[in-house]
């Protein structure tokens, strides 16, 4: 083997290995993000309890604002990182939880509930968002723990062959396309909702700015 061959091999390895490493890191980081998302969402009663005991309005506002920012940004980041489950080549070639894309759809549905309804004031909306998050977490954790992270356990081989995307490519792609259609539908509704909301609020502002029409004096 010549020096150029070794150089080529190292270059290719860095490029291909780097890409694989990036995907593997995202996959490894997702359970942490999912757990943070769940804990922050389910921990709302505790945060409210602490909030009640803060004597000053400033402290209460800072506490609530920090909680909301953290909770909702972690939710959004988890969905953004889950986008790897919608890349067909990766779904077929990598060991992903087979229902990872459905879990991501549940995350988006929880986000849509938050955007469409006042989750922090409406108990039913909060319950709906919680149900989507718990369903999504279940769809993510079970194939991850007993499939992807148990590939070397011989007694779980049947489970692995069903619930790992690279082992069950047809089903994995089917679930992915269905979830992608769901994501497209929810995103379309989010766009429509944003436009309608902007139209309403801007129309109100315009109405406030327009001077009242003066009627001619009756003689």
């Amino acid at each position, binding site marked *: *083997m010549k020096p150029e*061959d*070794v150089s*080529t*091999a*190292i270059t*290719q*390895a*860095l490029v*291909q*290995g*780097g890409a*694989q*490493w990036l995907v*593997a*890191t995202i996959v*490894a980081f997702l*359970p*942490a993000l999912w*757990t*943070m998302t*769940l*804990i*922050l*969402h*389910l*921990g*709302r*009663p*505790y945060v*409210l*309890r*602490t909030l*009640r*005991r*803060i*004597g*000053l309005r*400033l*402290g209460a506002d*800072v*506490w609530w604002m*920090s909680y909301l920012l953290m909770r909702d940004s972690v939710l959004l980041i988890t969905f953004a990182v889950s986008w790897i489950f919608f890349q067909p080549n990766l779904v077929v070639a990598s060991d992903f939880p087979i229902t990872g894309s459905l879990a991501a759809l549940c995350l988006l549905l929880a986000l849509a509930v938050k955007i469409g309804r006042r989750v*922090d004031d409406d*108990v*039913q909306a*909060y*319950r709906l968002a*919680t*149900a989507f998050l*718990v369903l999504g*977490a279940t769809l993510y954790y079970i194939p991850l*723990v*007993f499939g992807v*992270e*148990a*590939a*070397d*356990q011989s007694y*779980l081989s049947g489970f692995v062959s069903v619930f790992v995307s690279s082992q069950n490519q047809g089903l994995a792609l089917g679930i992915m396309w269905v979830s992608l259609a769901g994501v497209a539908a929810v995103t379309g509704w989010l766009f429509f909702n944003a436009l309608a909301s902007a139209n309403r609020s801007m129309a109100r502002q315009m109405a406030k700015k327009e001077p009242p029409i003066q009627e001619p004096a009756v003689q």
Partner: protein
Amino acid sequence: MSVQDLTNAIIDGINGGGEQFLEGTLAAILPIMWLIILGLHLGRPYVLDMIDRFTLRLGADLLWLIFVGLRDLLIVSGVVMSFMFFFPDIVTSSDLQLPITGGLAAAALFGVLLVKLIGDPDHNPRDFRLVTGLLGAGAILYFVPYVLGVQANQVAAGPFATVSNFLVTSTNPNWAAGLAYVSIALIAIMGAGAAAYTLITGGRAEVPETTSTK
């Protein structure tokens, strides 16, 4: 050896080494996290003493908020970082040495979060004792196999070596896998309890106020 063979060998090395580095780093940071969590929880009387000395209400509120936020966020981070203990392939891997009861320690940490969600450990002495007990049990479950097993298996001799090897996942994979499944079951039950509580209360703080002060 062809260029492709060399490429594949380097890719395997990068990915395998990277994964082991990540898991090894998490395992190395976890004892520090545990110590800080314990320090913050046990340091509560010191913080309360300081709050009493504040002449301005704003400063007292901010100190308490920062203390509570930091303490609870570290507990959440501890649970998140302990997630590798729930993965059967990791706890049975021969390349990674982990404390054998690390998963149970993580379950105890999750139990602390559950008590904080359902109860009121900052105002109810019974809940505070429960949280302290869970943190103590979790610390024992983490530090005993970590110090006597993972960090002592090369210096232990005779019967101590047997005990030391028993406490490390890589030299006791059957027990490690069994304890991982027990930890998963505990986390699943507690997680279902937390979800059910939140669904029932609709995210509101339902626990009645107690009259004691901070």
